[in-house]
């Protein structure tokens, strides 16, 4: 199948290794993965702040870049959520709707579409704490959020459990928001960073060597918080572990 690879703006600039891991991982399964060069962003930063009209041109550009692929895959939950659930600053033509429904977040793509059974190349002999970002947990429904009385499931845990040597630790508040929240991290920076300090401290107390997440934005924020208060913990995107980082 032809997959369009969407590497959101902040990952392009600050987490290129996650983009590389995603590309290599998808190629391991024998798919034709292409990265449209003119891509920039999905429009979420403006929409998240209420400025929907200001993201119309960005959304139109996104559609021009990603029209015609069997699937569009991105290693970022909140961006995918924006494309799939909001993304209404432009006219909803058949083409726009098509691109929106074919856009997937990496974990759900591996779990629900490719139905991957094994990652034989992956080995990660470390204690990790899983950070379910709010976008993936409560909106894309990667897993059962702790607030709901529903049967347990977790797509990221299903995938990570197939990695040799990995060990999981459970923080006291496993699905509390880390405080990133897009532009919230800047407009409400004191609350945002306090939430980040508490998050990384919780994982550290649980004994995590790494915090792993499907969202690099949360990880960049948490890393900045951990470094500021001197919590020794490492951060890694789920794509990197599944692609065999550290093996």
């Amino acid at each position, binding site marked *: 199948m032809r997959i369009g690879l969407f590497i959101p703006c902040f990952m392009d600039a600050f987490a290129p290794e996650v983009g590389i891991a995603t590309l290599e991982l998808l190629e391991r399964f024998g798919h034709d993965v292409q990265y449209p060069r003119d891509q920039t962003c999905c429009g979420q930063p403006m929409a998240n*702040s209420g400025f929907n009209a200001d993201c119309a041109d960005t959304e139109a550009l996104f559609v021009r870049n990603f029209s015609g692929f069997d699937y569009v895959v991105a290693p970022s939950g909140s961006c995918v959520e924006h494309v799939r659930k909001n993304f209404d600053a432009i006219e909803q033509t058949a083409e726009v709707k098509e691109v929106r429904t074919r856009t997937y977040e990496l974990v759900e793509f591996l779990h629900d579409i490719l139905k991957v059974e094994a990652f034989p190349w992956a080995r990660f002999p470390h204690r990790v704490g899983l950070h379910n970002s709010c976008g993936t947990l409560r909106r894309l429904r990667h897993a059962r959020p702790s607030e*709901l009385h529903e049967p347990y499931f977790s797509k990221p845990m299903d995938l990570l459990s197939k990695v040799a040597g990995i060990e999981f630790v459970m923080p006291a508040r496993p699905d509390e928001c880390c*405080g990133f929240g897009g532009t919230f991290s800047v*407009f409400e920076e004191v609350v945002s960073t306090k939430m980040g300090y508490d998050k990384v401290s919780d994982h550290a107390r649980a004994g995590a060597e790494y915090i792993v997440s499907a969202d690099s934005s949360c990880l960049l924020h948490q890393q900045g918080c951990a470094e500021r208060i001197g919590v020794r913990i490492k951060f890694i995107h789920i794509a990197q572990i599944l692609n065999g980082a550290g093996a």
Partner: protein
Amino acid sequence: MSAPPSMLHPELIGPDEPNAVVRDGHRLDHAEGASKPLRSRPEPQPRGAKVHGNRPIDQAEAAARFIAAPEHEKMHDERLWDLRQKRDREMHGIPEWEELRSLAAAIKEHTLTHLDEYLSQFDEKARSNGVHVHWARDAAEHNSTVYDILRDHGAKSLIKSKSMLTEECGFRPYMASVGIEVIETDLGERIQQLDNEDPSHVVVPAVHKLRTDVAEVFAKTIGTDPNNSDVHYLAGSQREATRPLILKADAGMTGCNFAVAETGTVVVCTNEGNADLSANVPKLHIASIGIEKIIPRLEHLAVFVRLLSRSALGSPITQYTSHFRGPRAGGEMHIILVDNGRSARLGMEEFWTSLKCIRCGACMNTCPVYRRSGGLSYGATYSGPIGLIIDPTFNAHKYSNLPFASSLNGSCSNVCPVKINIHEQIYAWRRELVKRHETPLAKRAAMKAAGELLSRPAAYRAAIAAADTALAHLPRFIIYSGLNAWGRHREVPHAPKQTFHSWYQKNRGGKK
């Protein structure tokens, strides 16, 4: 054997005391006795948002002050998280929990879409039960209606149980202005009244206070020992001080949790039994009811009673669920049905379901922003997630910053017992406020610029390259200056050697 006195209070022992331990010619004091307390007085309570008339409330500023008081912030976060955990335990004890939530949401949506019929039915039933029914369009009408009733009875003092509606109406200041003494009977609300502060939470109004804060308030107002912050002592002293006022009050007032249309019953849920005192001790009982509190039938009450306290405090039921259907023998009962913006809200396509709210406070308890900000940082009657979507309906300018005080994590919507899509309404309010030009100019300009840059690939690539270089060469103090909100309290991301884009060009350049 008990420890010798020298171990307990060495500073009280004279140099020639036989129990003093002397080494190298100096008296050896016990470490605890010799050390100084970390703080000579308890951490002062951080106060709420600064209110300047109609100017937009700066929630972020007040939240930062709350976080700067670590004892308060930690206590507040943990106390409310404990309620959230207890709520989860109760939820797991009810196999049909999610079904109950759906049912409660459906009952509320049905009622709100037939509100006129159920209100007429309630009005008619209450009148036939011997209750005087009044209607109030807004806060001013509510307050003057209460005053008229009190004046007719020559009442000079009023005891009342907790009611968010009366907070909405600015009821206490109004009563003070007409010379009527109001005594709150809910302990937390009484603390807030004595401290001349608004409630910070819809269920636990003084949850942001440490017991040392309460000791300070009581010492000033009811004459307790300022150095005694024992909770039993404080609660007991308050009871001693307030009980005589309750017994001699001329009138009583309650709010209402549920108003049953088929029977005309006013149902009030409390844990202190204080609504029963307010309704039953004086001969005159006034119940203030927001028009969204109606439920059609008594059987529907069971659904809400099972959800309310479990969601609020993680207890199966409130200690008291009191039904008031008519005046007691020799007494008089009045009901005031209050709109105060509710009809207008009912007409707002994206926001009308916020009227389903049963004021349990579960969204506040779970909200990571609320727990770290304190309820008074919102500078509004309703704080936390539900406040973010209700407050702007009262004043979209003054509360224009509130919908931005959220990370949009969505936990609030998941705990809501009546399934209000709170986080989606927060998002919708942001759009609405931009449409109404209620956002700062600097933010508008930044967003417009971002939109223009992100829609032009060539310009965007050039900007990214410049940013890379800039981050690599700027001295640290500039990156961390006040201009950079990211870097004030956290490190900036490490700029990698190359972007993904340039890696791809280099490594997969041949590919189309």
